[in-house]
């Protein structure tokens, strides 16, 4: 990318050729007020707020006013932001935007981090001269997640541009005309898109906001914000967790240039509120009954002393899993998932390590020019990736527009000039998919069919497959698309738990060579981290106990009944003399365990998750851990796992034992990290009420909790701002700018990496090992229908299902059968059934899109995760 020098009010900056003047100003710390421009949505020139003066050459004394967001830097030499005419123009614009604005700031959630407030103050509009009546609007009920207060709208169109153009939603639109324009749905009802929560951040005013936050509210300046990682899928989007008084209030997007960028999905925004749900395990249990900490801890010690195996968890941190592995020894450490799943995820790591395909970050996904998705319903399993693919599809359009000389930032113009061209995306999945509308080809296949199709594509690519591929078959066509692409991307994963699908993906990327990019999705946030530590699945664990290799078991942060077929979990419970469960949530495993001890959830502990790229990312304790629920590694430490006074000591032991994971230590600064102003602080500067209940001065500082494991402090004194290392950024505030829009200040370039590098450390380097042969893994033989889990963005996994907010938006669980299969078994629409002898809540729905020979059941409703398998569906007794 070439650079271009421009002079702005006497200061010379180097702008990136091809960007707009506003972006250039903002990334260089020159404030120009704006509303409709957005880093991910581009420029539309709707608000007229970003006016500046440009001069044609050295002799031009007059200059002319232009909208900086619509002006390519290529066209300008000399610019003035502070020119009196430009200043007066902007002051007029804000005044007319505020003409209808309600007198609402005191009762508006946005106030304090409102972009409109910031811009109004920055522009100097402090006195209302307009004395006539204000236009008003009626609000709509947009469901349980998002508020609506239309009077506050300034008609920047960001909401519809995000919701419709960027995220592919259909049910939010602009209505009315001129001064009356209205942003909402055709009628009241929940917003359908699983990305609707982003409206709270996209809208520069208080029209849309986070409803959960509004219910349990504190002003932005009154909440401590902590950098964290979303625990609800393997993408590992970065989030900020806001809390006050030790209670988590809301989650916001935390910018990550390679991953989530400006947006997260609703599961990531509302799912983390499971930590304030009543499903938390608050006190120790002995045989399912409440017990004292002392009794429970000594009972647990006794059980562990008998010789325990350790059952790890894909939702516990790398550190917690390692502590458990250290306590029981690697031969007695098992992954708390089915054998097939643990093999599958370890195989994924092998494939990624072998290369040569590059592991695509979400940013790279957006720049792929052909995509094949094998078996994954992305909107359900990794929603943010589905959102990225929507941008990928626009690649061809962007390219054509660029050929015609249309600048990429002129988003609506790109859409017109691009003539609706789409980069090819091929979906080979069992069920209708939310991405079908932009796919070049959607194939509906049963799980075996998906694997076979992947195999045929690989064979057509000359990967030495067994079968002949017909010349004009779909597989041949897809192979051709991939061969002709410069940056082909293959996406597969564990949604169907089929080893063959993963192998097919590996064969395809191997055949495509170094230009290929790959995404292999693991089931959970730290599945890859667990696989890196090693360990077989639950069946092997039960077998070891049965052989007498150990007597008891410690289960780490894991509801086993949700992660493996009931039969294997029952085998484990039958074989173990005693089970100790450590968990933050109350579930069937903690109820059945001999002893259950409460531990800190991810918002109360510091740790590392390893995402699908093999990126180790640190999350920090948003709330200081309570004594009654310490981090799980501390409990394991007390059992004798190590002698760790802090997390850094544990990580030190981990990287000595596992030099291949040495980068874990680089994921974020350690607990000793400090800056000139001290530790990085979570608290914004005002942070009210600091002395209101400090027992009238007697214990002033005693109330500020201490963070034992991280480099952040809970106090208000400390470092903030743009110099803070990127994994520790707690706020995008700079002087006078309080809203998250100000993130641009922290970026190297708009949409690019954070200044100082995106957070996280990559643990997997493609090409560092050769690929061992696959161990043949067959799905269990047996009778019945093949089970296809139905994944859903609002449901997610064990943790997100416990969030009351998300539950309010969750679709009712379903059980789908093809009408012919139903007829064969004598089921009618609405029939009550049992699956594998267990009653199933959802009744039968007939659906002709379901592949023959399969039954589709909502994930998490009545069948746990587990290998691709057959289940018996029978009429309920």
């Amino acid at each position, binding site marked *: 990318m070439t650079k271009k020098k421009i002079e702005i009010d006497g200061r010379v900056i180097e702008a990136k050729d091809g960007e707009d003047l506003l972006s250039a100003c903002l990334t260089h710390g020159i404030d120009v007020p704006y509303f409709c421009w957005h880093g991910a949505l581009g420029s539309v020139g709707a608000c007229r707020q970003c006016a500046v003066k440009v001069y044609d050459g050295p002799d031009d004394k007059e200059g002319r006013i232009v909208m900086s967001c619509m002006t390519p830097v290529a066209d300008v030499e000399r610019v003035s932001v502070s020119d009196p005419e430009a200043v007066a123009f902007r002051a007029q614009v804000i005044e007319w935007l505020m003409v209808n*604005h*309600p*007198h*609402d*700031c*005191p*009762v508006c959630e946005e*106030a*304090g981090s409102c972009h409109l407030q910031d811009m109004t103050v920055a522009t100097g509009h402090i006195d209302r001269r307009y*004395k*006539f*009546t*204000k*236009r*008003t*609007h*009626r*609000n709509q009920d947009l469901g349980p997640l998002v508020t609506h*207060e239309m*009077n*506050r709208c300034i008609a920047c169109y960001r909401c519809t541009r995000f919701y419709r153009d960027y995220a592919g939603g259909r049910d939010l639109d602009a*209505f*009315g*005309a*001129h001064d*009356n324009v*209205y942003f909402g749905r055709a009628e009241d009802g929940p917003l359908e898109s699983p990305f609707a929560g982003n409206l709270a951040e996209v809208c520069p005013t208080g029209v849309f906001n986070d409803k959960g936050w*509004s*219910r349990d*509210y*504190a*002003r932005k*300046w*009154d909440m401590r914000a902590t950098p964290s990682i979303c625990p609800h899928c393997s993408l590992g989007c970065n989030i900020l967790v806001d809390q*006050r*008084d030790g209670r988590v209030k809301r989650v916001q997007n935390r910018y990550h240039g390679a991953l989530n960028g400006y947006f997260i999905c609703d599961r990531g925004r509302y799912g983390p509120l499971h930590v304030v749900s009543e499903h938390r395990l608050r006190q120790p249990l002995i045989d399912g009954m409440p017990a004292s900490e002392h009794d429970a801890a000594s009972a647990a010690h006794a059980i562990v002393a008998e010789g325990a195996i350790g059952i790890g968890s894909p939702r516990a941190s790398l550190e917690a899993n390692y502590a458990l592995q250290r306590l029981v020894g690697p031969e007695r450490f098992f992954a708390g998932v089915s054998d097939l799943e643990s093999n599958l995820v370890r195989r994924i790591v092998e494939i990624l390590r072998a290369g040569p395909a590059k592991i695509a970050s979400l940013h790279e996904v957006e720049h792929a020019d052909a995509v094949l998705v094998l078996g994954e319903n992305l909107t359900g399993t990794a929603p943010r990736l589905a959102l990225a693919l929507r941008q990928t599809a626009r690649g061809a359009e962007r390219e054509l527009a660029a050929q015609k000389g249309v600048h990429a930032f002129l988003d609506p113009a790109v859409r017109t000039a691009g003539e609706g061209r789409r980069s090819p995306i091929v979906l080979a999945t069992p069920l209708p998919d939310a991405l079908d509308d932009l796919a070049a080809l959607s194939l509906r296949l049963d799980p075996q069919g998906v694997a076979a199709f992947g195999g045929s594509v690989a064979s057509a690519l000359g990967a030495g497959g067994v079968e002949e591929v017909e010349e004009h078959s779909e597989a041949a066509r897809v192979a051709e698309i991939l061969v002709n692409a410069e940056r082909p991307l293959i996406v597969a994963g564990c949604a169907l738990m089929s080893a063959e699908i993963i192998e097919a993906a590996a064969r395809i990327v191997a055949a495509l060579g170094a230009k290929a990019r790959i995404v292999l999705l693991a089931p959970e946030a730290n599945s890859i981290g667990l696989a890196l530590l090693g360990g077989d699945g639950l069946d092997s664990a039960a077998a070891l106990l049965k052989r007498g290799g150990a007597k008891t078991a410690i289960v780490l942060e894991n509801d086993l009944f949700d992660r493996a077929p009931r039969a294997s979990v029952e085998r484990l419970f039958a074989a173990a003399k005693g089970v100790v469960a450590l968990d933050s949530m109350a579930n069937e495993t903690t109820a059945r365990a001999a002893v259950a001890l409460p531990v800190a959830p991810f918002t109360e502990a510091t740790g590392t998750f390893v995402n699908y790229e093999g990126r180790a990312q640190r999350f920090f304790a948003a709330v200081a851990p309570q004594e009654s629920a310490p981090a799980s590694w501390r409990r394991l430490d007390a059992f004798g796992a190590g002698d760790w006074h802090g997390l850094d000591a544990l990580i030190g032991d981990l990287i000595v034992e596992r030099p291949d994971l040495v980068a874990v230590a680089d994921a974020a600064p350690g607990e000793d990290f400090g800056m000139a102003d001290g530790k990085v602080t979570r608290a914004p500067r*005002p*942070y*009210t*009420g*600091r*002395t*209101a*209940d*400090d*027992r*009238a*001065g*007697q214990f002033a500082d005693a109330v500020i909790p201490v963070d034992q494991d991280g480099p952040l402090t809970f106090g208000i004194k400390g470092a903030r701002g743009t110099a803070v290392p990127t994994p520790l950024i707690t706020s995008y505030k700079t002087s006078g700018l309080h809203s998250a829009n100000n993130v641009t200040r922290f970026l190297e370039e708009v949409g690019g990496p954070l200044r100082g590098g995106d957070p996280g450390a990559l643990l997997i380097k493609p090409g560092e090992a050769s690929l061992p042969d696959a161990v043949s893994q067959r799905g269990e033989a047996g009778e019945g229908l093949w089970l296809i889990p139905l994944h859903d963005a609002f449901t997610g996994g064990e943790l997100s299902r416990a969030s009351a907010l998300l539950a309010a938006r969750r679709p009712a669980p379903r059980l789908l059968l093809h009408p012919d299969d139903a007829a064969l078994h004598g089921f009618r629409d609405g029939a009550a059934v049992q699956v594998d002898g267990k009653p199933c809540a959802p009744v039968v729905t007939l659906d002709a899109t379901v592949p023959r020979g399969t039954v589709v059941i909502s994930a998490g409703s009545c069948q746990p995760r587990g290998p691709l398998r057959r289940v018996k569906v029978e009429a309920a007794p």
Partner: protein
Amino acid sequence: MIGFGWLEALLRVGRKLFVKPETQLYPEVKPKLYPRARGRIVLTRDPDGQERCVACNLCATVCPVGCIDLSKAVADDGRWYPEHFRVNFARCIFCGFCEDACPTAAIQLTPDYELSEWRRDALVYEKHDLLISGEGKVRGYRYWSFAGKAIPGKDKGEAEHEAPPVNLKGLLP
């Protein structure tokens, strides 16, 4: 040179012997304070007897010693109100910034300065200690009749300077 300045000073001071003393014998005699005097803080109600405070947190933010703490809740009728409201008078410096910042005229300082307690924590006042039943110094002001949010009895378009809500289905330009 020695002058007679000392004599003048003696006379000036000595004259005060015959003037009425300013010293008041508090507590037997209470000083007369004007309503604007800044003492104990109260939360007032609007002319309809409704709580004025909307829990906007501006007073707490502007407080230089940080002695105000409150949390927002929403009543069934949609009004915002403070679920708890706490002022620590052991810390308060009676600067009156909160009163200046308050957009609803809820928080007001009163001329009551008699705040002495044996125990310091008795100086932490909760909402039931602060909320009075009258309007205080500001008469007739109802914040909700200016705000754009609808509450029962004041629908959209019924606040001051508001036009009736737009009919989106209307065809007129």
